[in-house]
């Protein structure tokens, strides 16, 4: 009925040939979608296709200027990638980082969400405002800020660690410790704190919204039965919020796989190659001199395929929640 309203409304008063054509062929929704689809096609889909094409070519500076012709190189870019030990190192770092940070973020976010649900109104507003501010901090500001906090020269973290008592890992050896240039482990420790700080608020607020949808009678009944908090979580909260947790898990995996801004700034790109994650490795191959768009394209394709697997999971989780209705 509503659809009929729009179809009729759009064209009835206007009996030009164009309007008749639109009505007869039911074109109204397509016309309304056209600008959006054109933008998505031009900026998201077409570049992806081009990248796929570049990945089989030797596309670089000489090809752009026309000094040398563009040639098909078959799987050359892919074999070059798979035989490069730096690729495997960056892939390993990316996977390890996601494997550590995704669970930590989800646990921290869920705990804060549960806490917010228990707090009084004013306290909950205070805590969620603090979380909102961390989330609202632009990634560039947050990265520069954490770089400064962990800076060997005047940074607060090294100073604090050097003053802590021994039993709390305190030692004067921390004074002047350089977190960002001493290899992947210290650099990614800073990154872990940074990413959790920025992403737990979203998880907390989403979990809180989910908790509000759980009928209070269920908790009431559990309380009467004398269930422990952990049992309440396992038997009531978790099963009911499972769809939300699934979406949050997939989103977190995608986000933590994609980290670029934070790693770019914290590792001082292109300074420390042993601290490259996959994003930095791709960017380095594609844009650092001499630029190789073919190699970068092959990598971008591999990266997209990895994320596609996760995305399929995300889409299926969304569809199962009835998102398409």
């Amino acid at each position, binding site marked *: 009925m509503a659809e009929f309203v729009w179809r009729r409304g759009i064209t009835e008063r206007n009996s030009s040939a164009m309007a008749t054509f639109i009505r007869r062929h*039911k074109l109204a929704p397509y016309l*309304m979608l056209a600008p959006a689809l054109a933008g998505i096609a031009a900026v998201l889909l077409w570049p992806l296709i081009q990248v796929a094409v570049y990945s089989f070519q030797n596309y670089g500076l000489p090809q752009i200027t026309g000094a040398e012709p563009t040639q098909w190189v078959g799987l050359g870019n892919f074999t070059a990638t798979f035989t490069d030990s730096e690729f495997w190192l960056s892939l390993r770092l990316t996977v390890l980082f996601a494997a550590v940070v995704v669970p930590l973020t989800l646990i921290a976010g869920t705990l804060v969400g549960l806490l917010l649900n228990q707090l009084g109104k004013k306290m909950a507003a205070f805590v969620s*405002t603090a979380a909102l501010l961390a989330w609202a901090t632009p990634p560039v500001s947050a990265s520069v800020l954490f770089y*400064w906090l962990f800076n060997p020269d005047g940074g607060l973290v090294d100073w604090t660690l050097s003053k802590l008592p021994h039993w709390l890992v305190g030692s004067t050896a921390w004074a002047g410790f350089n977190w960002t240039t001493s290899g992947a482990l210290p650099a990614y420790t800073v990154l872990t704190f940074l990413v959790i700080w920025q992403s737990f608020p979203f998880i907390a607020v*989403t979990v809180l919204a989910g908790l509000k949808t759980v009928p209070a009678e269920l908790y009431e009944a559990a309380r009467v039965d004398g269930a422990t908090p952990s049992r309440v979580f396992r038997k009531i909260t978790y099963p009911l919020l499972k769809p939300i947790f699934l979406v949050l898990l997939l989103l977190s995996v995608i986000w933590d796989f994609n980290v670029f801004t934070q790693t770019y700034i914290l590792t001082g790109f292109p300074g420390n190659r042993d601290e490259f994650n996959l994003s930095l490795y791709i960017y380095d191959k594609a844009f650092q001199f001499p630029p190789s768009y073919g190699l970068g394209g092959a990598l971008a394709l591999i990266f997209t395929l990895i994320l596609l697997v996760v995305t399929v999971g995300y889409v299926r989780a969304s569809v199962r929640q009835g998102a398409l209705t």
Partner: protein
Amino acid sequence: MSNSSGRAVTVKRFKSVSLNGTGVLVALVTLFPIAWMVSTAFKPSQEIFSLTPHLTPTHPTLANFSQVISGQASGIGSVWLFFRNSIAVTLATVLLASLVSLLASVAVARFRFRFRASVLVLLLIVQMIPGQALIIALFLDFNRLGLLQNLLGLIIVYAAQALPVSIWMLRNFVATVPKELEEAAAIDGASAPTIFWRILFPLVAPGLVATSIFAFITAYNEFIVALTFLGQAHTAYTLPIYVTYFFGRGGAQWGPIMAASTMYTVPVMIFFLIVRRRLVGGLVAGAVKG
């Protein structure tokens, strides 16, 4: 009896104190880095590199801010220039993305057409394509179009990138508007543009605010496209690229760098606090409803 109820009260009080205590702790730990950024921005350099750092500046100064405003510290111009660039890009992105996604969301929420489900799945998938994968081709395309070292190129990319999520979010809002309102208006003889602007638009306005905030975040925070497109075109830098450039110059100018970061961060925080109710509702609607 009275003894056991007394114990229940004690347990309850203990629970309330420990909950509130945890709440305060979480809030303080979360706020601390921001406080440190703002505090550093107001410190003179002797205090920044002091052997015993203090949370608040002992002798607060505006010197860092004046260096950032004069452009002396970064060497590429006053912070206001980059502020203007960021605001221009962000506003244009929000307007363009809102308009285009509103049209599209009405199409998917109000019409049943052949490729409707395909369009919805496409939107879900394209929002997951990593920016790092696209940037290579985007860079080469926009280079050919001569759109690299200016703000227009950024606006086009940001608006398109904001579309999939905006359409999804708006679609949920359009779907909650009762169809009967439109039908009644149509029976009273209202034309489609009238129905759109007079009935649908006011009712989905809260949704538009939510999607605008999303487009705002996309444009104001975006890094990789601006970094790649703007290159050495300093005068076209947006705030994140300016802060990164400034930071990358080295020289341990932490006072001025934190002043620049503060000027980049605090306005968006104030904005978020103002719109927070809509913000949380809109974001959660996206995640909870799928």
